[in-house]
Every structure is written in structure tokens, then in C-alpha cells.
């Protein structure tokens, strides 16, 4: 039927294989460091030193799992991107190393590690070495608060949560541009210098719409805490920030009351979510609930619509700004191959180039996961609660629970809360990555003056307008936060 079915099948197979290859090690390592070792340590003699070691191990779990995650994930994303781009351009893509090119990027990584590390003559050697480090470091520590959000506030990752989470992430995300300017300047190469300057100009201009769009979402949610923002959006697609930041929550609740569905969680008996209880003691009819959430009747309906529209605009603004921030293709002026011979990383080779590469793809992942947490409800499943309860999931849940119970209760290998959250997060994040690849396959590069025009004359005003509109519309509807 579809002439290209085998190729698509191969891509899907690669995705499945690599996602297993990424998340099984991450899962097992974090389990070993965070659960198993402390458990063993504390079992023997509950001495002070043992407990302290166990606690240190637990505290280090997030960073260790990130360290395991980043290289494998970058390998997968490169392969994913290359194969998907090949599909879009009616090609085959890498298909030689391993079955169907499965191991291509692993081989590439090995190759990069063994290449000679060259420092050009006349370069500022110290800065030249420092630049990749500064570029890479934020992608390790910058995304940590997200870990708490995407694992549904798992007890091991709670430590990474911050009350100013999203602001922390943004501050960390603004650091790499320093590294780009540094790399460009220290390479002693004009192309690199121009690339670095472009990177700085672009990052500074596009940071404004990026931050403003996220601030607007925070305004809708009433919090800067990513875990809080993620948990507010629990309970199906109607509660997500993309649907007006909770503007449709009333509708969701109303349908729930109408159908007389008890609010039961998906798989676990104790879901620790839903901190925002309904303000008044449960209203009983559809109309009552609607009235409670949309107090100004017609005006409220309109403003709910406006909010939904605005949140789509915000998502678009965020994705545009993020694309520019991480130098993805329509905004890849700093490393334009055809004009600047890869810009700031012209002079880099071997492991330093590998670090740049790694960080770039990690940044893409981080940006996508920010979008997931801020707009798409983090680890929430898209199916509304009332629909979910209609589905015949009960027997499946029971049997799954029976099979997995030794893992859940005995070894603590599986945390049912986190498991499904992680599943949905992975799904959503890689969908965003796919969209980024699709955009890369479609749009040509901006010219530098178009870039500046677009940033300052279109995106900045648009984000300000969206901010103002949301501020006013939000008053008329009962939203999150």
C-alpha cells in the first residue's frame, strides 16, 4: 500500500531499539545507585557512615543517570535525525553499520574519540579548551529540575527540584552562547569568529520571546516550579497548558460529573498528584460545574477560547525561540556550513568536536522536554480521565500488577508512578524532536537581517501581546494556579 513501508518500518525499529538502549541502562544504573546499593548498605549495620554513604549515593543518582543518558541519547538522536531526514528526502540514510545502520552513530562516536585533537596555531589554547566544556556543562546541570518533573516527582529525583525551576533552566540555557563566542574568538579563524558573533546576536535576540513565552505559561500556572506546573496538568489533554493553561479544566470536570465517574488514577492506588482541589465542595450537575469554572458566562467562554489560541501562539513562540537558541536549522546561522564552513566549530576536531556535537543534541532533547513539561502536561497521559475509565483497562492492570508486583514491591525496580510518566514523556519528547527534524527538512536558512527583523519586529511584540492578553483573559476563567 505504502511503497516506502519497509523503510518506515526500519526507522521505527531503530527508534524502538535505541530507546530501549537508552533508557534501560539509565533505569538500571539509577536503580542500582539510588535503590539497590543504599538498600544493601543500610541492611547490614545501620552505622552513621553507611547511612551517609547511602544518602550520598541517592543524592548523586540524578546526575549519574544524566551522565549515562546524555551520550547514548545523542547517538540515538543523530541516527534518528539522519534516518528521518533520509525519509523526507527520498533516500535511504545510513544503513551499513550493523543491521539497517543501527550502529552507525556508535561507530561515529568511536571514530571521533580516536581522532587527533588539534589546536590551531595562534589560538588561545586555554579558551579553546574551555569553550566545549562551558558549552557542555549547562546541558548536564541545566536540565536537572526537569528530571523531577518528568519522573512525576519520584523520590530519588525530588532533590533536583527547585522553587525557581524554570528560571534556573533558562539561566542555564543562556550559558552556552558564551561558549560559542569563546570558541569563535579563540579559534583564531575569521569564519569561527563570525559564527560566534552571529551566535551571540541570535541568542540574545531570541532569548526574549523564548523567556516571555515561558513566563506567560508560568503566569497561567501561577508558579515557577516545574514539578508543580507538571502536576497541575494531570488528568488528560483538556488539562494541559496547551489547552489554554487549564481553561478547559472546567469542561473536563463537568463531563466527569455528568458521567458520574469517580476520579481514579490509571494504574496506581496512590497518585500523589492533584494539589489544587476544587475550591467548593463538589458540585453535582453539569451546569453547576460549568458555572463554577466559567463564572462570567459568555465572557468566560470567549476568554477561554482566547486563552487556548494564545497558548498555541505561545507554543509556536517557544519552539521558534528554542530553535534559534540551540541553532537548529532555520536558525543555524552560527554554524552555516555553506557560508561559514561550520562557523564556531570549524577548528575543532576529535573529542572537543564530539563534545560540541553531544551538547547540541542534548540541548535539542532538553528544549523538547521543556516544551513537554510546560505545554504538554509532562508525564500525563493524553486520554481524559472519564474516557479512560470507560475503557476496559481493569483486567490488564490487574494482570500487569500481578506480574510486576515482585519488581515493584520487592526490588523497587519499577515505580508505577514514574513508569507511565516516563513512558509518556519519552513519547512526547521524541515527537517534538521529530517535528524539529521535519522543520529542518523543510525550511531554508534565514538571512541574518531577516533573522533580526523576524526576532525583534515580529516575535518580541507578539510575545508581549500574548503576555498581556493572557494576563487579562486569565481573570475571567478559573485556571491552574
Amino acid at each position, binding site marked *: 500500500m505504502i511503497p516506502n513501508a519497509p523503510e518506515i518500518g526500519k526507522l521505527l525499529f531503530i527508534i524502538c531499539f535505541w530507546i530501549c538502549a537508552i533508557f534501560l541502562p539509565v533505569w538500571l544504573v539509577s536503580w542500582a545507585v539510588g535503590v539497590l546499593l543504599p538498600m544493601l548498605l543500610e541492611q547490614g549495620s545501620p552505622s552513621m557512615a553507611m547511612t551517609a554513604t547511602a544518602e550520598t549515593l541517592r543524592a548523586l543518582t540524578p546526575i549519574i543517570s544524566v551522565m549515562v543518558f546524555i551520550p547514548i541519547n545523542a547517538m540515538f538522536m543523530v541516527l534518528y535525525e539522519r534516518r528521518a531526514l533520509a525519509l523526507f528526502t527520498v533516500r535511504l540514510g545510513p544503513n551499513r553499520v550493523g543491521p539497517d545502520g543501527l550502529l552507525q552513530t556508535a561507530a561515529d562516536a568511536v571514530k571521533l574519540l580516536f581522532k587527533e585533537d588539534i589546536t590551531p596555531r595562534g589560538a588561545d589554547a586555554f579558551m579553546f579548551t574551555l569553550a566545549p566544556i562551558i558549552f557542555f556543562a549547562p546541558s548536564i546541570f541545566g536540565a536537572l529540575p526537569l528530571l523531577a518533573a518528568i519522573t512525576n516527582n519520584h523520590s530519588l529525583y525530588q532533590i533536583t527540584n527547585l522553587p525557581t525551576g524554570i528560571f534556573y533552566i533558562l*539561566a542555564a540555557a543562556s550559558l552556552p552562547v558564551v561558549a560559542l563566542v569563546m570558541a569563535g574568538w579563540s579559534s583564531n579563524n575569521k569564519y569561527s569568529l563570525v559564527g560566534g558573533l552571529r551566535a551571540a546576536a541570535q541568542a540574545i535576540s531570541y532569548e526574549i520571546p523564548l523567556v516571555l513565552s515561558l513566563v506567560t505559561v508560568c503566569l497561567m500556572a501561577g508558579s515557577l516550579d516545574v514539578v508543580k506546573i507538571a502536576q497541575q496538568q494531570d488528568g488528560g489533554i483538556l488539562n494541559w497548558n496547551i489547552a489554554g493553561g487549564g481553561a478547559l479544566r472546567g469542561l473536563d470536570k463537568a463531563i466527569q460529573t455528568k458521567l458520574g465517574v469517580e476520579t481514579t488514577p490509571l494504574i496506581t492506588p496512590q497518585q500523589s498528584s492533584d494539589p489544587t482541589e476544587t475550591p467548593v465542595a463538589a458540585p453535582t450537575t453539569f451546569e453547576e460545574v460549568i458555572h463554577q469554572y466559567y463564572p462570567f458566562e459568555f465572557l468566560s467562554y470567549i476568554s477561554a477560547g482566547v486563552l487556548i489560541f494564545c497558548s498555541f501562539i505561545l507554543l509556536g513562540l517557544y519552539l521558534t525561540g528554542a530553535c534559534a537558541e540551540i541553532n537548529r536549522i532555520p536558525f543555524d546561522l552560527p554554524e552555516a556550513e555553506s557560508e561559514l564552513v561550520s562557523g564556531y566549530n570549524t577548528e575543532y576536531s576529535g573529542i572537543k568536536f564530539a563534545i560540541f556535537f553531544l551538547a547540541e543534541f542534548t540541548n535539542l532533547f532538553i528544549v523538547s522536554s521543556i516544551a513537554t513539561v510546560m505545554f504538554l502536561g509532562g508525564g500525563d497521559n493524553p486520554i481524559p480521565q472519564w474516557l479512560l475509565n470507560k475503557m476496559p483497562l481493569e483486567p490488564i492492570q490487574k494482570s500487569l500488577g500481578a506480574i510486576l508486583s515482585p519488581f515493584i514491591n520487592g526490588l523497587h525496580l519499577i515505580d508505577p508512578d514514574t513508569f507511565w510518566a516516563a513512558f509518556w514523556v519519552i513519547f512526547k519528547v521524541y515527537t517534538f524532536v521529530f517535528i524539529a527534524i521535519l522543520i529542518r527538512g523543510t525550511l531554508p536558512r534565514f538571512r541574518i537581517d531577516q533573522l533580526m527583523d523576524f526576532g525583534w519586529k515580529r516575535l518580541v511584540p507578539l510575545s508581549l501581546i500574548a503576555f498581556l492578553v493572557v494576563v487579562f483573559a486569565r481573570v475571567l476563567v478559573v485556571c491552574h494556579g
Partner: protein
Amino acid sequence: MDQYMILKDYVSSADAETALFYVIAILAISLSVGVISDRNIIRSGFILIGVFGAISGLFLMLQAQFLALAQVMIYAVGITLVVVIALMLTNPRSEREAVITEGDEFSQETGAVQFIQRLQQGTPAFVAVFSFFTIYLAIRSESWTPVTEKVSTDNVKVLGEALTTVYSLPFEFASVLLLAALIGAIMLAKAEKRQPAIESAED
């Protein structure tokens, strides 16, 4: 949160805090010495970013998370980067030439003029010492009351309230100042209008 009891105790103990403070302070001071002593002006620009980072670490220790992050985002990355770029675009090697010409001038001047120039050179040092002592005395004075209770974790709320109530007037003044600077910059940077004669000639 009881799973990190010992660790938490250790981290928030006075010893650890003091040690951390000294580490960050030494880092900040040595980096700032680097800023003024580095011969390459662009390098010192980059080191300045490190100084701001260290200072934001100090803010973090005071539990002013929001301030620390704003420091990183706006001062360390935004403003310093723009300054560095401006330096790159002007003349990165000007400092060497300046040294050479200065030496030439000195040899040609007479004693009195030389003395005045020495004095001029000494002025920044004098200003620096003076302001250092001013700040030092201000900090050591008794009007500071140390706060012992925990700062609210919701930094943003406190800051927002302060800015819109007690400090709203200074805040507005600062905004007006920035606006004036912005307009001035635009006026300076605006391209001059073409002479009508040239335009007609082009036509």
C-alpha cells in the same frame, strides 16, 4: 525528604557554609584580579563573566535564588557578552599600540608635563582605594542587622512585592533612566539623513 537527613545536616552546617563562602569568595577575587591584569582585553571580558558567575554563587548562598539566576542570565551572559562583542568589533589589538605610543610621548615631554601625566595615571588608583574604603566602612558599620531566620523560599513573590510597594519609585526611576539611555543610543546610532544634493544626483 527524610532520606537525606545526614546529608542535609552536613550541607547546612556552619562549617560547610563558611568553607563554601571562602571558596567562592577566593574564586571571585582571583578572577577579578585576572580581569584587570590580563593583557588581552577580550580575555578579561570572558573572565568578567566568571566573576559574575562567582558573585551569583554568593547570592545563591544567601538563598536569593532568583537574584542569582538573574545575575547569571542578564549580567554574566547578556550584558558582558554584548560588551565583549563590542570590543571584538572595535579593535582587539589596540592596547598594545597604546602602550607603544605612550612610551614615545613620555620621552618627548618635559618634566612638569610628565609629572602631571603621572598624576593622571595615579588617579584611578586613588579612586579605587577611596571607594574600596568607603564600601568597607559602610559594610563594617553597625547599621546592618544580621537576619537569622530562614528567608522565604518563594523569592519571586518577595521580590515582586518589594518592587511594587516599597521600592516602586526607585524602580520606576531606574526604568526611566534605562529608557533615556535607550533613546540616546538609538539617536546616536541612527544613520544620518542623506544630503538632498546627493539624492538628486543619484536620481
